[in-house]
């Protein structure tokens, strides 16, 4: 049986270099360590407790001592935060019973301590294909419970941030969870979606969605499309430090969870359908939105991309 804690310790032993590490390549624990103030992270139910999935053995799968997610508390720019980080390399970061319950417990603790000695924010470092099919029912229900808990935390006045830029992206219920958060930070590699391209191709045929066409997949599901259409709030270059700075900047500007916010979201999403509902590719959206050289947007460097003025309405509090 592998111990993820040990394999990871060997990965990046020099903690001081973590902030400059690439988010996409980093393991969950390294993302957490590099994101938070140095040496402030305390894990809840750490891997030494070996709380593992009991459901994987019957599928001949090896479990992980943390069931693919790290949860705990720490400090960000001096402020107390709760944090959960999914291990995208372990079963695609998918939600199972234990995995989901760890995130749920963290959110409930944030809700119950709000206004007292609770965290200033909750950070969700999503890296997930969605439901873990070997525990499909438990994973699906956990996702619904997590959605409910995120909204309760927000209702209690505590922002919940989604940070997406890992290998597994945020698919399935992970994409829905992302859009329930107060703010969403993505990097170039992030893909945020519900149905994966392979599943669409399997069900609807290659002419509907060619999942092998990587450039197309990025244009349909990727960070740049989300950022330019308002599906993400910040687009960062890929280091852990970039995510840290964006999180610090966004926490004070989280929209409240209330009727006015959802009415604004209703209008925002209805307007998007009105404007772009007949588009088949992101380049058509960008052209309609009046962006110059839309066919180049997917390929330009991050600096050039960040210099683009976002279309009207993409920068919003309607979430």
């Amino acid at each position, binding site marked *: 049986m592998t111990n993820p804690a040990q394999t990871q310790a060997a990965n990046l032993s020099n903690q001081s270099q973590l902030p400059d590490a690439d988010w996409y390549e980093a393991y969950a624990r390294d993302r957490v360590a590099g994101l938070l103030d140095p040496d402030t992270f305390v894990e809840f139910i750490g891997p030494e407790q070996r709380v593992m999935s009991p459901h994987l053995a019957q599928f001949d799968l090896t479990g992980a001592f943390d069931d693919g997610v790290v949860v705990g508390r720490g400090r960000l720019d001096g402020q107390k935060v709760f944090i959960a980080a999914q291990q995208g390399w372990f079963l695609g970061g998918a939600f199972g019973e234990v995995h989901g319950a760890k995130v749920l417990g963290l959110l409930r603790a944030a809700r119950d301590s709000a206004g007292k000695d609770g965290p200033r924010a909750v950070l969700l470092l999503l890296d997930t294909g969605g439901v873990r*099919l070997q525990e499909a029912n438990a994973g699906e229900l956990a996702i619904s419970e997590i959605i409910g808990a995120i909204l309760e935390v927000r209702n209690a006045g505590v922002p919940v941030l989604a940070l997406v830029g890992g290998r597994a992206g945020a698919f399935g219920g992970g994409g829905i969870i992302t859009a329930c958060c107060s703010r969403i930070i993505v990097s170039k590699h992030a893909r945020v979606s519900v149905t994966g391209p392979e599943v669409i191709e399997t069900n609807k045929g290659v002419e509907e969605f060619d999942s092998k066409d990587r450039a197309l997949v990025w244009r349909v599901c990727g960070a740049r499309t989300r950022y330019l259409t308002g599906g993400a709030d910040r687009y960062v270059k890929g280091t852990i430090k970039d995510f840290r700075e964006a999180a610090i900047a966004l926490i004070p500007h989280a929209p409240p969870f209330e009727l006015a916010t959802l009415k604004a979201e209703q209008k925002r999403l209805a307007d998007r359908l009105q404007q772009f509902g007949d588009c088949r590719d992101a380049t058509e959206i960008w052209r309609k939105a009046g962006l110059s050289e839309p066919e180049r947007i997917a390929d330009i460097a991050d600096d050039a991309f960040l210099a683009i003025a976002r279309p009207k309405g993409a920068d919003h509090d309607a979430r």
Partner: protein
Amino acid sequence: MTLDEVLASLFPSGHAVERGRSGMLHGSGKVDGQGDVTIVGIAGGTPLGVDGAILLADRVLAAVEAGGRAPIVVLVDTASQNMARRDELLGLNEYLAHLAKSLALAAACGHRTASILYGPAAAGAFIAAALSSRSLVALPGAQPSVMDLPSISRVTKLPLEDLKKLAKTTPIFAPGVEPLFAIGAVTEIWAASEPLALRLSALLGKPAADGDARDRIGLERKGRLLAQKIAERVAAEAAANAGK
């Protein structure tokens, strides 16, 4: 059960339900002891996509804005989320999340919310339309699922026959009302032989559980043994670390 049968047996005292675009339903019905309830829904096995989700959420938000505490009943006969490039390009995750948020807001504002499943609902559509209400009722014909067994077989590379055998020993992965009831996802199962209007009146008359009790229910039903304990352990460790 057909939609007409469902409406007739749930709302014998009267209902007015319009069928709109994208399989959407909206209207109102009378429930003994509850007065008028808001009815929304998705019918005809229609996959839930961006167009349907935005219409449903609009009706739910209108009910919240109207004030009062009238219950909201969500009738569900869908499929999975609409699996299409267009929906993903437009950000289906935001539309499904918006519907889930609207139902959560309604519950937070004092509306009793109940989804009533009388057909299929799978994957993201199951989350947004069925699991986002405070209660989920399964009627005859309900077919809740995360993913069908042949697809699970493909992904897990386990033969379908083995999966079918395994499904008899655990409710943790197999589709269907029974396993999803056992883990706490389905609140109640109603049979066609029962007077459904009475059951609905009784359900809506009960205050919703204080907070999300599905992990506790799954433990009581012995279908999901770990979730509640793990969530509590995390919360306990967080509380022990409070103030630091």
